[in-house]
């Protein structure tokens, strides 16, 4: 396999952008990524896009709005992990030698209200949808509730994770929620799906993100000093032992056990010949407070059962041994589903380059880990400076 490098990254700010189209947002992210890489759209040999709620035209029109260059276009739909699924396929296309330079785009315009999955008119899962059992946050909330019963520190740690997200979100000009939030604010905000309060939940956001991936030869030509290598990719979906119950797709099970994250992380570390002790900065998929706590354990940053203390003791902070979600993560940055996975890469690349500005983690980070899940499907990448 050939080595694969992230050469350029770009983002359209996350927020509510009703006056903009998906094309408007994606053009800004793509243009920024191309400029960051020092290349141009006609040099892209393929495009990989990720979005969940994409329209009939979207992916093709987004690419063609940059130019009718005749390249192959692939579109991935994997709920919250759509963007990282696009990245994964682009990575393998370069690693296999099929292309030298590809564009990856994640984007989404979100509706309002709680996220649900599926459509009764097409999947005929009438009980699931009509009885209100298709709410993604409700399944995750129940996973969190079970942990609350077992872990006396979990309630405090959930609040710590949420408050840290808002604290770092204030430093991130591309984030959706930029406001000062206290622990009392988090505890006293309205319950959405108990035990999750509104301020423990990511907002529905619009946004777009883009990266340029290159082979080693192209990266050298464009400038190897700013290139970040993707040294491992691992991905998967739940096996039967990880299922939690029915009806409905696998939702929230990994937020209970972390077993899928554990399995995929083992593979990623092995491929990278690295371990959790080598990781300097992390983006983990935590749309609801508590996700980062379970990830800290499942990704191996602390022993099992000590995730709450890990967060309460500040070990996930920028100055801690394993900074997690240094740009605020999903809770404050926002969660335009397809854009999230690629935005995680944006943040990690900027961290590894030392270009993250006000939320740059100290210590000259060398290795970063990205974790992105979507209705049970999980994509993970390890990046190295």
């Amino acid at each position: 396999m050939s080595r694969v490098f992230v050469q350029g990254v770009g983002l359209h700010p996350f927020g509510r952008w009703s006056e903009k189209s998906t094309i408007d947002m994606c053009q800004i992210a793509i243009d920024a990524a191309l400029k960051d890489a020092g290349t141009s759209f006609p040099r892209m040999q393929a495009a990989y896009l990720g979005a969940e709620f994409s329209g009939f035209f979207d992916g093709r029109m987004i690419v063609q709005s940059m130019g009718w260059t005749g390249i192959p276009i692939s579109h991935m739909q994997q709920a919250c992990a759509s963007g990282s699924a696009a990245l994964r396929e682009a990575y393998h296309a370069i690693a296999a030698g099929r292309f030298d330079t590809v564009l990856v785009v994640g984007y989404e315009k979100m509706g309002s209200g709680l996220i649900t999955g599926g459509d009764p008119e097409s999947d005929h899962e009438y009980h699931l949808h009509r009885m209100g059992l298709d709410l993604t946050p409700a399944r995750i909330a129940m996973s969190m509730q079970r942990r609350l019963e077992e872990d006396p520190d979990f309630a405090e740690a959930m609040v710590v994770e949420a408050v840290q997200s808002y604290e770092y979100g204030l430093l991130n000009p591309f984030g959706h929620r930029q406001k000062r939030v206290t622990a009392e604010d988090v505890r006293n905000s309205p319950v959405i799906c108990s035990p999750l309060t509104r301020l423990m939940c990511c907002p529905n956001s619009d946004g777009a993100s883009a990266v340029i991936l290159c082979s080693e030869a192209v990266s050298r030509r464009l400038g190897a000093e700013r290139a970040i290598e993707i040294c491992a990719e691992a991905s998967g979906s739940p096996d039967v032992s990880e299922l939690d119950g029915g009806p409905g797709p696998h939702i929230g099970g990994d937020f209970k056990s972390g077993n899928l994250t554990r399995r995929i992380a083992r593979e990623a570390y092995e491929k990278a010949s690295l371990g959790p002790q080598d990781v300097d900065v992390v983006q983990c998929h935590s749309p609801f407070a508590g996700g980062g706590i379970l990830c800290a354990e499942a990704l191996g940053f602390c022993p099992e059962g000590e995730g709450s203390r890990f967060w309460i003791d500040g070990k996930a902070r920028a100055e801690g041994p394993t900074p997690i979600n240094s740009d605020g993560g999903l809770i404050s940055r926002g969660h335009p589903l397809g854009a999230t996975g690629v935005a995680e890469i944006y943040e990690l690349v900027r961290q590894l380059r030392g270009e993250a500005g006000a939320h740059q983690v100290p210590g000259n980070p060398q290795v970063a880990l990205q974790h992105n899940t979507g209705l049970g499907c999980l994509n993970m990448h390890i990046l190295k400076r």
Partner: protein
Amino acid sequence: MLTNNNFPEAKLNILSDVPQGAVALQADTFQPAEDGIRLVASSCATCGGVFFPRRRFCGRCSGADLTDRLLSPQGKIRAFSLIDRKSGAAIVEAPYVQACVALPEGLNIYTVLAGAGADRPFIGMATEVCLAEVSRDPEDRPIVAYVFRPSSSEETQ
């Protein structure tokens, strides 16, 4: 607004029998029984896997030799959540309680919890499956679905 001390009652009409002309919200999820209803699962003849709802292929071995199996009517709450918002396609009005009920067969069932009311749900609470009228169809026939409600039975595993 919901708080952690304010538990809503799902506005469902609990039924003791399947009414005449009733339409199941989703066919093949339950069957009438002498003392109520039973959920219908699939049991794999090849590997013994049991899954709910019914499946065409086994979730464990992908075998196609599956037969119906009626599930125990009682189980214990494994987790629950108070839901403050109605989902897009739902006919159940918020607020309501959603629960994960563990059955003796080792299956977890996600369900609306009806009749919890002032009896605050708790992990380990004994529940039983029952039938509820959840809506009416255009011909004014009752649309019925399974839900779980608190149970005082000592038979709960």
